[in-house]
């Protein structure tokens, strides 16, 4: 005989102001099977939970319904309370009378009626709940970090420092990411390479870290604690094991004028190349598309010049399968294609460049060795105009968000320009100066006060060329008049956007993304580094635009989450899984087709002599994720889903 306890929470005023809780308690108290029904201001509080526990013990309750907030909020809280009182934690249901009732309705009678029905239907469900036990699964205590930028490197180093193995996968020939391209960093103006390259070396030399460069994640299978990842190791045509990175091959390569991606097209590279001098690992790759040998079948100069025979034209891409327990996604961002701003002339005028171009021009290791020179004629620009929000906060272009770092990097650019070109004049068009961060506002003040950056509040409507000069036409909205600046160079503070393949990649590994393609965290405020997929974590600019300090902080946070997961050898999982009744299963394998996780196998039923009498479906509890698609598919009603059985749901519907 069921003995159900119903506990109606007021949630302060949140529920009680719209639902007549006394009426609800009275109505539900008369429902068959309900032994206890009571109300309280906050059942989630300590004394509230004590009330529930006491009621379970004193009345020997067989099931509990808490009519309160969403199960997404407090299901775990009350499950724990039930367990502490000796009741199986899965004998609990939460009736959501807050998010889906009191908060969304305006008529107290209607809301009360609805609350009664919701609670009643869950009383009927809980009567049919079964004792369930969490499933224990082993955890592979090795992590994979996807993306070798500063966020990925930080996450890998933190996990490795705690003694766990890490596989760091990077698709470019070198780790380092965008940070390696930067000149100096705000707000300290320390050189980006100087702070990053030691960490890159540390990562590649760490005994717990396996760095896989020029490699891409193809496929992720499995679940938290037990992922199987397929990684494509792209053919480098250079033997990693023997190459010393002497660079002879690069010097001799006859194919010279290939625009370098790392230099944003401002410099050239060869067909065999390392993206930059400080690349880690310092092993070149052959670019098949441009290599003379691959194009014409003749050349092989690199092979001849290599004294240790490390060139291997026969290398093939190979797929490596790696078992890991957790995945950190740190795939970063790309710079927005500013060509969509036709009015700014990007792509048409050589001297209209993006922020990242300017970084390369200002970088000591860049194509101009750190001299600020115009890309068109190599002359020092006398006046530089910076246009902020060139691609951010512009709903008309589908870019509603603030890219967060542009205000700061523009101030930095103006400072670097002032330090390098003493007589130069900088003019910055801005919408707002967003300098929230430690030392950030001081930094922008310094750009204005010490380095005489001229800030003009307003948008630019057009950039055009006249007599070899760039004319920037815009508005000064503080003075309320149009302005025109004659410039030698225009720098667009281009937005950070998701990688072009971000959405495809998200689908491949099974995580969510927002309307732009930035990856979704499980909860914006409370679970910022987890994804909705258990065991996959996020850090860096793949989640949203971020500066270096934020990316690094988030990377360490993700590493902490991974280490928390790795602190136990076994992992407990929700026992919401399917199971088969062997007696009725006809072996039609409809469920096998339906299952998205390949969790259903064929099992032989044998007689006493070992002869197979029947083959039936069998659910692998380790793989089953509990979606229940197989249950609906089953023609003979032989599969059911724990926690959401046919009986439970029909009872729930019947009571509505």
């Amino acid at each position, binding site marked *: 005989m069921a003995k159900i306890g119903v506990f109606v929470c007021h949630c302060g005023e949140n529920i009680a102001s719209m639902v007549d809780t006394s009426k609800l308690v009275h109505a539900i108290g008369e429902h068959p099977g309900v032994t206890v029904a009571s109300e309280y201001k906050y059942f989630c509080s300590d004394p509230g939970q004590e009330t529930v526990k006491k009621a379970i013990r004193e009345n020997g309750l067989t099931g509990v319904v808490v009519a309160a907030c*969403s*199960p*997404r909020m407090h299901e775990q809280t009350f499950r724990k309370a039930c367990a502490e009182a000796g009741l199986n934690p899965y004998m609990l249901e939460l009736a*959501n009378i*807050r*998010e*889906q*009732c009191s*908060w*969304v*309705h*305006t*008529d107290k009678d*209607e*809301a009360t*009626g*609805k609350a009664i*029905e*919701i609670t009643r*239907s869950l009383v009927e469900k809980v009567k049919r709940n079964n004792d369930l036990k969490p499933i224990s699964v082993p955890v592979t205590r090795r992590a994979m970090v996807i993306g070798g930028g500063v966020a990925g490197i930080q996450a890998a180093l933190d996990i490795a420092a705690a003694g766990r193995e890490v596989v760091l996968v990077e698709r470019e020939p070198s780790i380092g990411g965008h940070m390696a391209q930067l000149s100096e960093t705000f707000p300290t103006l320390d050189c980006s390479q100087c702070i990053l390259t030691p960490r890159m070396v540390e990562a590649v030399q760490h005994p717990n870290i396996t760095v896989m460069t020029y490699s891409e994640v193809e496929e992720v299978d499995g679940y938290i604690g037990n992922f199987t990842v397929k990684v494509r190791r792209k053919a480098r045509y250079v033997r990693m094991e023997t190459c010393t990175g002497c660079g002879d091959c690069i010097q001799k390569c006859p194919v010279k004028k290939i625009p370098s991606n790392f230099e944003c097209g401002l410099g050239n590279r060869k067909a065999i190349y390392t993206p930059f001098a400080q690349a880690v690992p310092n092993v070149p790759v052959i670019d098949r598309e441009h290599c003379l040998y691959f194009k014409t079948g003749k050349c092989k100069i690199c092979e001849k010049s290599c004294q240790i025979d490390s060139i291997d034209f026969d290398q093939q891409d190979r797929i490596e399968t790696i078992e890991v327990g957790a995945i950190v996604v740190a795939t970063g961002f790309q710079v927005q294609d500013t060509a969509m701003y036709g009015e700014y002339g990007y792509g048409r005028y050589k001297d209209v460049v993006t922020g990242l171009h300017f970084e390369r021009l200002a970088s000591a290791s860049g194509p101009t060795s750190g001299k600020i020179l115009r890309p068109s004629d190599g002359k020092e620009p006398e006046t530089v105009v910076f246009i902020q929000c060139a691609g951010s906060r512009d709903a008309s272009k589908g870019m509603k968000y603030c890219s967060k770092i542009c205000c700061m990097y523009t101030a930095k650019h103006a400072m670097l320009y002032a330090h390098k070109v003493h007589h130069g004049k900088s003019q910055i068009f801005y919408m707002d100066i967003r300098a929230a961060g430690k030392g950030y506002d001081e930094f922008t003040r310094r750009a204005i006060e010490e380095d005489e950056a001229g800030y003009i509040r307003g948008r630019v409507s057009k950039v055009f060329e006249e007599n070899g000069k760039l004319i920037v036409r815009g508005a000064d909205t503080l003075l309320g008049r149009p302005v025109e600046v004659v410039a030698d160079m225009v720098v667009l503070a281009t937005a950070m956007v998701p990688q072009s393949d971000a959405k495809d990649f998200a*689908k491949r590994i*099974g995580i*969510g993304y*927002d309307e732009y393609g930035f990856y979704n965290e499980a909860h914006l405020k409370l679970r910022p580094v987890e994804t*909705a*997929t258990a065991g996959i974590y996020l850090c860096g600019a793949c989640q949203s635009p971020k500066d270096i300090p934020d990316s690094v902080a988030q990377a360490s946070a993700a590493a902490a989450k991974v280490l928390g997961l790795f602190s136990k050898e076994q992992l407990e999982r929700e026992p*919401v899984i399917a199971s088969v009744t062997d007696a009725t299963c006809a072996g039609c394998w409809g469920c096998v087709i*339906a299952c*998205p*996780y390949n969790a259903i196998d064929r099992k032989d039923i044998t007689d006493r002599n070992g002869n197979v009498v029947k083959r039936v479906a069998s659910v692998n509890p380790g793989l089953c*994720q*509990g*979606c*229940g*698609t197989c*249950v*609906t*598919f089953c023609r003979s009603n032989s599969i059911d*889903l724990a*926690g*959401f059985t*046919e009986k439970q*749901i*029909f009872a*729930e*519907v*019947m009571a*509505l």
Partner: protein
Amino acid sequence: MSESFEPKIVAFVCTYCTYAGADLAGTSRMKYASNVRIVRLPCTGRISPMFILKALQKGADGVLVSGCHPGDCHFAQGNYHARRRWTVFRALLAFTGIPEERIKFSWISAAEGAKFTELINGITGQIRALGPFEQYQELQTVIETQSTY
């Protein structure tokens, strides 16, 4: 059909997208009609046509099925199965004589609280206009009268 007819609608939703979307409507304090009762399931793939028929039999005037957008299913493919099942089920509905308009299928993500509000208000209006669903009750009466002789 009286002027003050208020339909009862049963919604079968998945916990990852639509249920979360409904929660979001709540936390955002959006307001919508109180006619819908939600049954939470792990995935739309778990929703059997039998649930829908049962709800109608029990006196629901309309049924809503809602889950994650195609491609966004937490369980990878559950919502595709639900969609296919719905396509087949539609033909069966026609055969049984239940008007298709009584049942609505939609995709609501966890971020679409406003869309959820619109959907609930929309479907409530539509079902209200259709009037009460009485075929089952009539059938019940027929069965009862037949069994008397």
